C-alpha cells in the first residue's frame, strides 16, 4: 500500500511505553504521529490534520475531556477516540460528552485494536444515551475546573508579584552594597598612599564623610593600657575642637565605640538622641539633629586598634545589610593605620641602625683617632712643664732681686712675701739660660692649640652621629651667624644671597657645623696668601628642588689626584697647621644625613669651590 495514502493517526500519550506499544501495533497499517503532552498534541494536530486522533484521558496540564473539547472545536471533523485504563461507565460518558466518538480501554487487545481503529476510521460512532444530561454535567465540570485554574493562576500571579518585589529589594540592596563597596575602594585607594599616621586619619574621616554623605566621622585609637579610646581624628570644626581637648572614651558598654571594641563587632545605634543608649557624649558638644551612629572596630591581624565611628543626621541611616561593605571599609582603614605604624617603627629602627652604624664607624676610626689625639697631645706635657719651670725661674729671679727688701713699702709686698717660701731654690742652669717671656707664651700657645685640635677631632668624629633635631631653617640667618661666630679677619668672607630663599628643613647645629667646616677649610687653604678671599653664595639651584650654597676661595686649588682623597677620614694636607683630616668627611656625613649633595670643583692655581645642595621643601 502506498504509504502516502495510509491514514494518519495522532496519538497523544504521556507514557513513553504506551506510545511505543501503540505505535508498533498501528504502524503497519497507519502513519502514526505521537505527542507526549496535550499542548504539543494540539499543535501537531493543527499542523498535520490527522485522520484520527487517539488520546489518552489521563494527561498532565489538560485532562483528556478538556483536550477532547478543545480539539473538537479546532478540528470539528476529525474523529477523536478516547483511550484510557479507566473502565468505569462514568469515564466513558465523560469522554463521549466531551466530543469523543469512541472509548477504548487499556490494556489493548492487539488482535482487535487495529480493527477497532479501522472501524472508527470507517465512520463508526458510539452513541451516548441522554447525551444532553452528560454534556451539561461535562460543562459544569469544565467550569469548576476552570475556576480552579483561575484561582491557581491568581495565586501564581500573587506569588510572582511577591517574587518581583523581593527581587527589587535585593537589587536595591545589592546596588547600595555596590555603592558602599565602591566608596570603600575609593577611600582605600586614597588612604593607602598616605604613610603619615595623623594625615592618614585626618584624610580618612574627610573622605568617608564625603563618600557616604555623613554628618560626622571620627577615628578612635586604643590607648597603650587598652582602657581608653582616644579620638585621633574627627571631621571638620567639631573634630578639631574634640581633638584639641583630647577627647577620649572609656572602653565600656556605655558607648557604641566602647562596645564595638569590646565585642569586636559593629554597633548600630539607630537614634542617638533618644537618650536610651547613651551612645556618645558628642551630643554635649554639637547641636545635632536626630541622628544615628555606627561604630566599627578597627581590627588588624586579630588585634583591635580602635574604632571608626560614623554619624548620620538620618535616624535609620545604617542597617545590618550595610555591615559587610562598611566593615570592609573599616578593615581597609585598619590596614592603612597598621602600615603607618609599621613605617613609623621601621623609621625608628632605621634611625637606630644609622646611629649604631655611625658609632661603628667611630669605633673603626678610634684606632686612628687614638694615634691622632696622641700626636696632637704630644707637645702638651712638655710645654706645660717648660712653662712651669720658666715661671718658677722668673719667680726666683724676682726673689733674688728683692732679697734686700727695698720694695717692702710697695702695696703688693705682702703678697710677694707669701710667695717667697714656696719657690724651690734649685732651678736647672739650662732653664735659666733659655729663659724668656716669649718662650713661656709660646709654650702656652702650643698647649692651647694642641688642646683645641684635640677638641676639633672630637667634634668632627662625634658631631655627625648626634641625634638630629629637624626644624625649619632660615638659611641666610644661619650663614650670617656661622660666619660671624668664626671671627675671621674682616673682609675675608663675603656672603652673597639671593633675595628670597625657601626655608629648609634640617638640623641647625649640624648645618652650622657644615658651613663652619667648609669656610674653615677654605681659610686654611689660604694660609700664607696675600689677599685671602672666601665667597659664600646662597641661591636656588638650577634644579629648583635644591638650594645651593657655594664656598669659593682664591687659594691654591686642589690637584686632580687629591680630589677623591679629601673625603677620606684622617687624610689632611694641613697637619702642620692643626688639620685633623676629619672636617670634610664630617661635612659629607652631615650633607648625606640631610639628603643633599656635596661636591668640589677646583683648578690648581685658581682656587676651589665646595658646592652644597640641600633639598628645598
Amino acid at each position, binding site marked *: 500500500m502506498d504509504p502516502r495514502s495510509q491514514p494518519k493517526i495522532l496519538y497523544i500519550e504521556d507514557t513513553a511505553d504506551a506510545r511505543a506499544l501503540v505505535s508498533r501495533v498501528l504502524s503497519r497499517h497507519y502513519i502514526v504521529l505521537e505527542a507526549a503532552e496535550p499542548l504539543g498534541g494540539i499543535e501537531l494536530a493543527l499542523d498535520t490534520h490527522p485522520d484520527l486522533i487517539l488520546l489518552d484521558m489521563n494527561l498532565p496540564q489538560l485532562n483528556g475531556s478538556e483536550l477532547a473539547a478543545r480539539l473538537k472545536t479546532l478540528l470539528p471533523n476529525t474523529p477523536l477516540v478516547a483511550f484510557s485504563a479507566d473502565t468505569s461507565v462514568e469515564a466513558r460518558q465523560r469522554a463521549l460528552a466531551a466530543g469523543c466518538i469512541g472509548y477504548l480501554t487499556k490494556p489493548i487487545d492487539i488482535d482487535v485494536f487495529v480493527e477497532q481503529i479501522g472501524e472508527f476510521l470507517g465512520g463508526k460512532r458510539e452513541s451516548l444515551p441522554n447525551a444532553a444530561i452528560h454534556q451539561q454535567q461535562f460543562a459544569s465540570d469544565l467550569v469548576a475546573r476552570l475556576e480552579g485554574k483561575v484561582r491557581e493562576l491568581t495565586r501564581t500571579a500573587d506569588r510572582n508579584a511577591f517574587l518581583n518585589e523581593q527581587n527589587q529589594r535585593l537589587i536595591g540592596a545589592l546596588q547600595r552594597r555596590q555603592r558602599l563597596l565602591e566608596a570603600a575602594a575609593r577611600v582605600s585607594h586614597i588612604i593607602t598612599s598616605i604613610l603619615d599616621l595623623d594625615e592618614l586619619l585626618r584624610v580618612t574621616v574627610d573622605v568617608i564623610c564625603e563618600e557616604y554623605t555623613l554628618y560626622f566621622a571620627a577615628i578612635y585609637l586604643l590607648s597603650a593600657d587598652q582602657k581608653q579610646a582616644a579620638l585621633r581624628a574627627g571631621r571638620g570644626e567639631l573634630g578639631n575642637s574634640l581633638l584639641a581637648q583630647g577627647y577620649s572614651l572609656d572602653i565600656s558598654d556605655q558607648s557604641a565605640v566602647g562596645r564595638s571594641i569590646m565585642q569586636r563587632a559593629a554597633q548600630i545605634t539607630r537614634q542617638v538622641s533618644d537618650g536610651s543608649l547613651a551612645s556618645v557624649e558628642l551630643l554635649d558638644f554639637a547641636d545635632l539633629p536626630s541622628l544615628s551612629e555606627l561604630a566599627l572596630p578597627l581590627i588588624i591581624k586579630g588585634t583591635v586598634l580602635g574604632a571608626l565611628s560614623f554619624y548620620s543626621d538620618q535616624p535609620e541611616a545604617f542597617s545590618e545589610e550595610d555591615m559587610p561593605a562598611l566593615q570592609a571599609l573599616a578593615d581597609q582603614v585598619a590596614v592603612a593605620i597598621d602600615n603607618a605604624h609599621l613605617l613609623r617603627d621601621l623609621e625608628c629602627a632605621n634611625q637606630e641602625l644609622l646611629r649604631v652604624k655611625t658609632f661603628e664607624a667611630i669605633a673603626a676610626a678610634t*684606632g*686612628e683617632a*687614638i*694615634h691622632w689625639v*696622641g*700626636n*696632637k*697631645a*704630644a*707637645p702638651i*706635657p*712638655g*710645654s706645660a*712643664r*717648660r712653662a712651669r719651670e720658666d715661671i718658677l725661674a722668673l719667680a726666683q729671679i724676682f726673689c733674688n732681686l728683692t732679697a734686700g727688701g727695698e720694695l717692702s713699702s710697695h702695696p703688693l709686698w705682702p703678697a710677694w712675701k707669701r710667695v717667697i717660701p714656696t719657690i724651690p731654690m734649685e732651678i*736647672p742652669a*739650662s*732653664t735659666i739660660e*733659655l729663659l724668656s717671656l716669649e*718662650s713661656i707664651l*709660646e*709654650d702656652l700657645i*702650643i698647649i692651647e*692649640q*694642641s688642646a683645641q685640635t684635640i677638641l676639633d677631632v672630637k667634634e668632627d668624629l662625634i658631631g655627625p652621629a648626634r641625634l638630629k633635631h629637624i626644624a625649619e631653617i632660615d638659611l641666610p640667618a644661619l650663614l650670617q651667624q656661622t660666619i660671624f661666630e668664626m671671627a675671621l679677619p674682616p673682609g675675608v668672607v663675603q656672603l652673597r644671597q639671593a633675595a628670597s630663599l625657601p626655608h629648609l628643613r634640617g638640623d641647625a647645629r649640624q648645618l652650622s657645623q657644615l658651613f663652619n667646616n667648609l669656610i674653615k677649610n677654605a681659610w686654611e687653604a689660604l694660609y700664607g696668601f696675600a689677599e685671602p678671599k672666601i665667597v659664600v653664595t646662597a641661591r636656588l639651584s638650577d634644579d629648583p628642588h635644591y638650594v645651593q650654597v657655594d664656598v669659593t676661595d682664591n687659594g691654591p686649588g686642589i*690637584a686632580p689626584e*687629591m680630589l677623591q682623597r679629601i673625603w677620606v677620614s684622617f*687624610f*689632611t*694636607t694641613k*697637619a*702642620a*697647621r*692643626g688639620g685633623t683630616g676629619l672636617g670634610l668627611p664630617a661635612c659629607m656625613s652631615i650633607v648625606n644625613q640631610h639628603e643633599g649633595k656635596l661636591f668640589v670643583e677646583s683648578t690648581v692655581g685658581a682656587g676651589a669651590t665646595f658646592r652644597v645642595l640641600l633639598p628645598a621643601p
Partner: protein
Amino acid sequence: MQGKKILIVDDEQLVARSMQKTLARAGYTVQVAYSCTEGLQVFEAAQAAAPFDLALLDLNMPGFSGQPENGAGLELLSRLKALNPGLPVVVLTAYDEVNKAREAVLRGAQAFFVKGREQALVDQVRTLLQGDASR
C-alpha cells in the same frame, strides 16, 4: 756631649717645635724642617761646616713630591744614611706603625720613638749620642 746638633723633620709644627725646645733645654742645638725636601736641604747644607750628629724623622709627612705620603720619612732616612752612613737616626712613630718601624730599622735607623713623652726622647737621644761619643 753638649752642643751636639740634632735635625728634626716633622710636618706637625707644634710637635716639632715642642721637641725642639725640650731638646734645646737638654743642651742640644736643634734645627727643624717641615718636609722631606726641606729636611734634606738643611742636612746637606750643614754637611760641610757643622754636620748634624743625630736626626729625628717623622714617617708621615709631605714626601719629595710635595704631597703627603705615608712613610715618606723612610725615603728621607735612606737619603740621609747615604750621605752619612754613621748617622744615628730616631724614627718618630705611632702605635699602629709597627711594620714601618721595622722597615726603618732595616734601613739603618737606630731607634724609634713613640710620640708623646718628650722627656723619654731626651733620655733616648742622650743614650744614642753617648754611644756615638764613646766610639
